């Protein structure tokens, strides 16, 4: 029943899911960094930075991820010659372009998650901290961020799970991850239902434990108010 799986070795089933995991990991790291910068801008006292952060989030959130990813390939790479340090290796190029697109898109959601986390800290906390004479960095380090981080785990976990599912969009520019392999298999093999079940199972395995663990963590660490 599973014989046909051995016909696929570039990439194999596990290999394709490994690419999915890698896409998720690198995009998660990248969007965490870029999203934190954006969030810092959105809550900064400088109006211009706030404006930039807000516009970025509102624009990027409203564009389909598919449009962004396809643009990285047809626009950035083909027209502007952005080869991501791999001019001849199309596999590596597509992989990196997909990460670039995923980071640009996911960062907007990371930014919103972080900002809502900061907003859950009551203003009175910071006011009390200032009243006892703590400096700006002390207020941030000792009072605001520890509370904000705890309430941000849940929303960030949601973003991570959505990102894991969104990596399938990389298939649109030919990155050999799980969805592309599924397309190839399901078109060539007779076992439609079985292939659907295998790949669905793969994604359930990837997303469910992450969701359960981070959901448990966010509940455990939640600030009781």
């Amino acid at each position, binding site marked *: 029943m599973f014989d046909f799986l051995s016909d696929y070795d570039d990439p194999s089933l596990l290999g394709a899911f490994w690419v999915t995991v890698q896409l998720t990991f690198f995009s998660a790291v990248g969007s965490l960094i870029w999203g934190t910068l954006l969030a810092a801008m959105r809550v900064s006292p400088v*109006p211009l*930075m706030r404006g930039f952060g807000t516009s970025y989030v509102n624009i990027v959130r409203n*564009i389909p*991820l*598919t449009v962004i990813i*396809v*643009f990285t390939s047809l626009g950035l790479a*083909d027209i502007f010659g952005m080869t991501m340090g791999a001019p001849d290796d199309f596999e590596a190029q597509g992989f990196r372009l997909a990460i670039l697109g995923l980071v640009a898109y996911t960062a907007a959601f990371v930014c919103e998650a972080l900002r809502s986390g900061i907003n859950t800290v009551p203003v009175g906390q910071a006011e009390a901290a200032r009243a006892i004479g703590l400096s700006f960095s002390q207020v941030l380090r000792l009072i605001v961020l520890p509370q904000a981080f705890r309430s941000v785990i849940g929303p960030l976990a*949601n973003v991570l799970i959505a990102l894991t599912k969104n990596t399938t969009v990389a298939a649109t520019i030919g990155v050999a991850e799980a969805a592309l392999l599924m397309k190839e298999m399901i078109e060539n093999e007779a076992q439609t239902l079985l292939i659907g079940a295998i790949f*669905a199972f793969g994604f359930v395995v990837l997303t469910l434990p992450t969701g359960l663990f981070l959901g448990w963590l966010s509940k455990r660490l939640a600030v009781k108010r």
Partner: protein
Amino acid sequence: MTSVLYDAPGPKAKRRNLLFSVVFFVLLALLAWWIWQVMDDKGQLRWALWEPFTQSEAWTTYLLPGLGDTLKAAALAMIIALPLGAFFGISRMSDHRWVRMPAGAVVEFFRAIPVLLLMLFANEFYARYTDVSSADRPLYAVVTGLVLYNASVLAEIVRAGILALPKGQTEAAQAIGLRKGQTMTTILLPQAVTAMLPAIVSQLVVIVKDTALGGVMLGFTELLNARGTLAANYANVIPSFIVVAVIFIVLNFILTSFAGWLEARLRRSKRSTGAVLGAEDVDELNAAEIGTPGTGKGDIV
């Protein structure tokens, strides 16, 4: 302006903020100038590439039919997914374990799977087991994928909407002797639907964005797909991408604003119980099950 992070600025902070503003403005200007230079270098600013968008042909032949298909798929998906979502959402709150558990399993399963996988599967399924013509198949597959995924998200929205209602509503209904079904259909659902409206409109944004997947992977002739045909004709890849992105932004911005307006209106309204499910709750429900649903009102009943 006081926020949790900083106090109203004094003279020193005002000067520092001004300095940051100037530095940031210069950086942004440099970035804009650089993008302009690169665009110019590659000849993407030539009027010939942009001109088609000022003429009706590009719109009537390519963009508007594409946008039409995008809207058609999104509308169909929403209309089919709503009753399905209501069914699963209500089943999940059933008092009977053998109704609640399967409904929960179905909802969690379809929320954990990328919508692209559902579309690819539906496409192949229709090709092998039904006689849907190959011309109609992309639309069928896109709508099926969207329905399976969004019905499960809507099920969670329905559940969260009902859970968001004050407990007194159920208790009062029970006190006057209504049965469980009557409580649901005459008391809870009508109020929950109102509370859910902003969330449902926000979910439309997700649906509209996901239709683009079908354009690339299944050849469904929606907006992004139409962009490809258009760019092949006028050789204007970058301008066509920008125009299509702007169309998506405007469309989704209108939907988001409408959802925000509905939400604000419902929160102000004196006639409702004040239970509202907004856009932020939808973001949460689109991921997968982690802890409590949007309203934070507790676990599965």
